[in-house]
């Protein structure tokens, strides 16, 4: 996997917020007021796991620091490059029988294939990158699927 983390502005905001929240929890733990803050029912359920385990909290913070140091913000490509698939593109594919399939190529931290957002490091993501409209692609897992690139779209992010 690449050491660079491609993120949209929204994704970056989310990561920064988690980092700041966890730093506050660490501060509370080391100051000793953890029982009040961490045992409270108001605690964001996402952070329950850090209640008992300061070492895991530390490692998650290191993880986030690593991500924040290696972020590459996804930018809208210049107009003359928008006919090619880069990270951030939504690609419409057409199969021989006319069936349509669509993906948005994103960085690993924002990928959610259930929503159609696939990672640029996934086999399909890698195949899509750098292709242009009307290019024919072959996806070969043990089975072979042939697609034609019908449309490439960039929306603001």
């Amino acid at each position, binding site marked *: *996997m690449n050491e660079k983390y491609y993120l949209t502005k929204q994704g970056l905001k*989310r990561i920064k917020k988690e980092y700041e929240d966890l730093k506050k929890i660490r501060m509370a733990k080391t100051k000793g007021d953890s029982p009040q803050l961490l045992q409270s029912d108001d605690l964001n*359920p*996402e952070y*329950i*796991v850090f209640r008992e*385990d300061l070492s*895991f909290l530390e*490692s*998650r913070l*290191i*993880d986030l620091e690593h991500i924040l140091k290696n972020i590459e913000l996804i930018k809208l490509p210049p107009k003359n490059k928008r006919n090619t698939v880069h990270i951030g593109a*939504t690609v*419409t594919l057409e*199969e021989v029988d006319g*069936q*349509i*399939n*669509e*993906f*948005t190529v994103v960085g*690993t*931290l924002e*990928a*959610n*294939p*259930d*929503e*159609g957002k*696939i*990672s*640029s*490091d*996934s*086999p*399909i*993501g890698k195949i899509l990158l750098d292709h242009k409209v009307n290019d024919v692609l072959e*996806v070969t*897992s*043990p*089975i072979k*699927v042939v697609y034609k690139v019908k449309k490439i779209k960039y929306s603001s992010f």
Partner: protein
Amino acid sequence: MKNILNFLIEANKLKEMPRTGWVLMGVKKPEFITGHVFRLTVAAWLMGEKAGLNIERAMKIALFHDLGEVYAGDATPFDYYGGLSRKKKKDEKLLMKWVRLSKEEKKKRARARTNKETKAFLKLTKNLEPKLKNEIHAHWYDYEKRMSKEARFVKQLDKIETLLQSIEYFGSDNSTGGTSWWEGTKEIVEDPLLLDFLAVIQRRLYRRYRRIFGEKIKVSKTFKKREKELIHILDFLLEIGKLKHMPRLYWMIRGVKKPETVAGHIFTLTLMAWVFGTPQKRTYKMEKLLKMALVHELSAVYTGDSTPYGRILRRTKEKKEKILEKWPRLSRKEKMRKFIDDFRKERKAFKRLSARLRGPSGKEIFKLWHEYRTKNSVEGRFLSQLNVMAVLLQALSYEEQDKKFSAAPIWEWAFEVSDNPVNFELIEEMKKRFY
């Protein structure tokens, strides 16, 4: 990777092995060994937390404890009589009550079973890398010898889980054999918290038949204080028990004759989470990974199992077989809509489920599912990709058994989802092993 894949293929056989006790008792569609392991592991988590145990250790003990049955077969106390059948009148009488054996005989049987299972464990883990092999062995020996407090706790809980299943099959009536396991459970349970839990089971599920048992379970001094919590856990465990008998829809619509259950799939993913979460350089927290794997499909209790084809199959006039040949093709808008619909349904189900548990455990379950579903953490992303590998492995096993079955759509799914080295390595190994 080759040896790990072989280990998983072998362990997956437990998904098709019914528990012998229920077969002897004439249960028509008995649970599989993995169903029992699934609920026991969840119980080890929830009850272990109340007992202040090391949850990771308790869950691993529960997860591994029956692995040897792949080769040793499922042992039941009723084997002691050898070849009983409920259909025979004289046998039925024996099956109605817990086994009676001399102390010597019990020892002899236990030794024989341990020897058989030890050989089975050694065979199953023979080629695994030392770190994994040693961990399985350590937890299993711990369980067998009851060395740690976690092992002693899970050993007792194992009986309680089976007791719950017996109540689900036979009710709590002694004329149907529903009291037999009660007798067996009472022989082994001694932990104060578990005795309180037994008292809750007695009060909730056996209340009409209390006179059958004579004495009440002796409860601890703190019983009153924790009774409600224990009732919530009992209700929750009974609820998720439905997944032991719920077949996976994806295989059903493809005509698989004996499809794995939702609980069986959860078992596979939990085992894979342990296998592949262990040697990672990334900072996965094992306890969290195991819990997330156990939780990831609990919503099926209320939503039923679903497939990505549901909406498409309802709307189209195309032949079902034709559609099922491929992974669904959808526009981004349709994918989003489907994701949001599914997400809402699952969220509602999880809110209902976590409300049953109340308190921190309920919140934690909700949060784990949320992270998994939104892939909003390293564990969530790792596990959701691993989940596809668990499904692919199952599909390849079906394809191997039945040449008409095709794993092609799952391959497509795996190619969309995977972007971590574990998945890539597994994909390559699966290609070598199955093609």
